[in-house]
């Protein structure tokens, strides 16, 4: 058994826009092992979003193979892809995408609702555990508009965790947050990673990439650089070194 969570080989993705063919990904190969914290970076137009959709099993490659936890995604039907997303991937979005007017607990329960094997009691217990893991004790009954941005993102992370996925896939998860809250979220991510979660984090902030173990740099639909982070920063330390903010 290999411990490769992701195996991407010569993946290409082309879109047909009218008469033109847009080649968003032009042959990308890399692997992600279990327990890695990979950031994918790139400027806009580099194919970052396309790659993310592919990794999240929302899209399939035109060419090449994508193996997620030893399953070839290309061979799966729409419904099988949905099941894969449900059981193997935890999404964290830039805009949190929590259901409005729905409590934190219910938001976290949501992925489990689409898994018919889980009883309502187990669902509740796991959702509570996930919210405790992101340190949101006592906020179970708050709706998103009663929570701050950082708290909302924590709820979203709890929602991504609750299914015990093989990989957490974050799309600019700190994009809407201020530096302090971003660091808090990254500290949480590092904690999760330390506990063995594989994380793929898409961002365009080099600052954020510094918290990961490895950075994959995209440019024009190709991997430009794939480097291990030798001087990995600790988000907790970064947080501590931030100047005290004066609340006014």
């Amino acid at each position, binding site marked *: 058994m290999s411990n490769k969570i992701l195996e991407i080989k010569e993946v290409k993705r082309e879109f047909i826009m009218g008469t033109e063919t847009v080649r968003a990904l032009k042959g990308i190969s890399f692997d992600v092992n279990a327990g890695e914290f990979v950031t994918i970076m790139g400027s806009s137009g580099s194919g970052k979003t396309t790659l993310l959709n592919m990794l999240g099993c929302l899209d399939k490659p035109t060419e090449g193979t994508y193996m997620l936890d030893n399953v070839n995604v290309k061979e799966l039907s729409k419904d099988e892809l*949905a099941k894969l*997303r449900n*059981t193997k991937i935890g999404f964290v979005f830039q805009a949190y*995408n929590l*259901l409005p007017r729905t409590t934190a607990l219910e938001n976290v329960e949501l992925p489990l609702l689409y898994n018919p094997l889980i009883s309502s009691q187990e669902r509740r217990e796991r959702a509570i555990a996930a919210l405790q893991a992101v340190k949101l004790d006592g906020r179970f009954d708050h709706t998103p508009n009663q929570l701050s941005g950082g708290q909302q993102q924590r709820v979203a992370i709890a*929602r991504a965790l609750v299914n015990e996925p093989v990989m957490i896939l974050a799309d600019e998860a700190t994009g809407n947050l201020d530096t302090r809250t971003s660091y808090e979220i990254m500290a949480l991510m590092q904690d999760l990673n330390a506990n063995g979660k594989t994380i793929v984090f898409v961002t365009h902030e080099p600052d954020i990439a510094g918290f990961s173990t490895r950075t994959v740099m995209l440019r024009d639909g190709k991997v430009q650089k794939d480097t291990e982070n030798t001087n990995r920063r600790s988000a907790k330390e970064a947080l501590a070194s931030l100047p005290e903010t004066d609340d006014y």
Partner: protein
Amino acid sequence: MKIINLILLAIKALQRNKLRALLTMLGIIIGVASVITMMSIGEGSKQSINNSLSSMGSNMITIMPQSNEPGGARIMGSSFKTLTIKDVEALQKNAPHIAMISPLASSSGQSINAAANWPTTIQGVSPEYLEIRKLSVQDGIIFSEQDVKSSAKVCLLGKTVVDNLFPNGESPLGKVIRFGKIPLQVIGVLTAKGTSNFGQDQDDIIIAPYTTIQKRVLSSIYFNQIYASATKEDDSDEAVDEATVALKATHKIREGEENDFQIRTQAELMTMLNSTSSMMTALLTAVASISLVIGGIGIMNIMYVSVTERTREIGLRMSIGARGIDILLQFLIEAVMISVTGGVIGVVLGISAAIIIPSMLNWPTVISESSIVISFLVCAVTGIFFGYYPALKASGLDPIEALRYE
């Protein structure tokens, strides 16, 4: 997703938009309530017609004389003289599906008891007449076959006649009254039947043996009508066929010639009267069901808005593992929930209206289970039909685009 969770989800979604849900339901509520009300009014009037007709005997057959002179002026059927005792005998012999038979010779005139008098109709019949017409004797007895043979001067009085000839309330039994110049001994009083559907006082009659009327009152050998009853209600058609054949033979009517009699069954009369009320009911129900359709379109409209509003939610649900069918069912169940809840409220309102109307407008109403079941099914189907397209649209969304939808 399990169905129970989908239903809970739909309830929550509707609770979040209570006013909108209620307004959307309104069309369905009005539609279902009016369909049930209209159908119960229709059913009520139909049943009241049927009741009064079957109180006359539902397997009754009436034979009347009719002109068969081509070209001549058509005259009232009863003024023709074609039916005689021979016809009655022929029917008794040759029509096995006719159980009972009674000729009718009637005459109008003044009935007199001492100082009281009353204009009424006397009907000369055989004893079976009472059973055919579902008349019964309240006091006294029916005259016998022997009385018929001897043209006995006996009679039975209807309640109206009793009230007018015996205003002091004494028993008419055994008294002798006069009809015109003929003295008749009262041997029985008929049970009151009240006013018929056509506004006729059914108790304003005197009944006597037909021979008495023919010989002593009319001096005629002809009958105005012949009443008969089929062995069973379902046998009416056979009985009519047999009677037609038998009467054609006695009247010597050749093939191709017009009959000089006509035969009517109670069933025909019932159908005739019912078809009018059925048509009215159908018309009113059709108008009412238009509002059901409009209600359905309202649901479709709101569901489309709801799908557009919740595009991001749909995208999110898909990205965390909802299949197309989960999304489809989520919206479909929401639509069905709206229409079924509206249907339940509509059924309650419709039933209340059907209960209140008789006391307010004095129209009879009968709530039929079928109207409730039908309108309920129709609104469930409406929900599915009009909810399906928005739900299909939702389930067909591309999760990538739905997630980025602004």
